[in-house]
C-alpha cells in the first residue's frame, strides 16, 4: 500500500484507542451508582490500558533502525478496589447490617481521565493534520 500521508496508520490506531478509553470512562460515569450490575454485586469500573505494537518496517535504506509503534487499547475490569459502603437500611440491595456496597467509581478521577483522553485525541488529530499538509506539499513539487 502506498503511504501517502506519513503516520496515518499510527494516528488512526491512537484515535481508536483514545475513543475506546472515552467510551469506558462514560460507561463508568453512567454506572457510578449501579448497585446491582449483571452478574451480581455493584458495578466494577472499567479500566483501559494502552500497549504499543511495532509497525512493519518502513525506514528507508537498510532498515536496521527501530520502527514507530501503533497503540492498542485493552479494557480490563478493576476488581482490586472496593467502593464505599453507605448505610441505607431501606435500600433493596442493603446487606443484613443495612449497608449498601457502592461501585468503585470515583467521579472526580473519571472526569480528570476524560479530559486527559480528549486532549490526547486532539494531539493525535493535529499529527494527522500535519501529515496531510506534508502530503499536499509533496504533491505540489514542480508546480
Amino acid at each position, binding site marked *: 500500500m502506498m503511504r501517502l500521508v*506519513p*503516520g*496515518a496508520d*499510527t*494516528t488512526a*490506531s*491512537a484515535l481508536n*484507542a483514545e475513543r475506546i478509553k472515552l467510551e469506558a470512562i462514560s460507561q463508568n460515569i453512567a454506572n457510578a451508582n449501579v448497585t446491582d450490575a449483571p452478574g451480581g454485586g455493584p458495578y466494577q469500573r472499567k479500566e483501559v*490500558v*494502552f*500497549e*504499543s505494537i511495532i*509497525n512493519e518496517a*518502513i*525506514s*528507508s*535504506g*537498510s*532498515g*536496521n*533502525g*527501530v*520502527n*514507530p*509503534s*501503533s*497503540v492498542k487499547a485493552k479494557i480490563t475490569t478493576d476488581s482490586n478496589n472496593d467502593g464505599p459502603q453507605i448505610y441505607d437500611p431501606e435500600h433493596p440491595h442493603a446487606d443484613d447490617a443495612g449497608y449498601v456496597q457502592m461501585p468503585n467509581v470515583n467521579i472526580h478521577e473519571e472526569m480528570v481521565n476524560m479530559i*486527559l*483522553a480528549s*486532549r*490526547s485525541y486532539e*494531539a*493525535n488529530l*493535529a*499529527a*494527522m493534520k*500535519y*501529515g496531510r*499538509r*506534508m502530503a499536499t*506539499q*509533496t504533491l*505540489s*513539487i*514542480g*508546480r
Partner: protein
Amino acid sequence: MIEALFESNNYQASKKLMDMTVLRQEAIAGNLANANTPGYKRVDIDSDFAASLKDALNGKSNEQIDNLTVNLAVDSLAPKTDASGNTVDIEKEMVLLSENQIQHQLESRMISGKMSRLRLAIKGGQ
C-alpha cells in the same frame, strides 16, 4: 547542462532531508500515539544522520549523500515524564511536529525552485 541543475550537492541533500522529514513525521505520530502507553520510549531520527550528512556535504560527494540511510532510533536521552517510565512529552512533540512540517516545506520549495529555474531557462523568461 540539465544534469548540472539536478546533480548539485544541495539538491541531493534536499531530497535526502525530505525523506528524513517524512520518516520523522512517522516517528512523531508514533510518539503522540503512545503518549499514554506505560513504559513507552520515544523514537526519533538516529542522531548519526546529521553528522553523516554533514560529512557527505563536506566531501561534496553525491554518491556519499545518496548512500546515506535514514533510520529511527530510541531517544535514550529523553527524560521520563511519568512514573511508568514513558518518555513522551506532548508539548515537545507538538513543537517538533510543526518544526518538521516547516522543514518539509523548505525542502520541497528548494526542489521546486530548481525545477522553476530550468523552466525559466527553457522559456527564456516569457
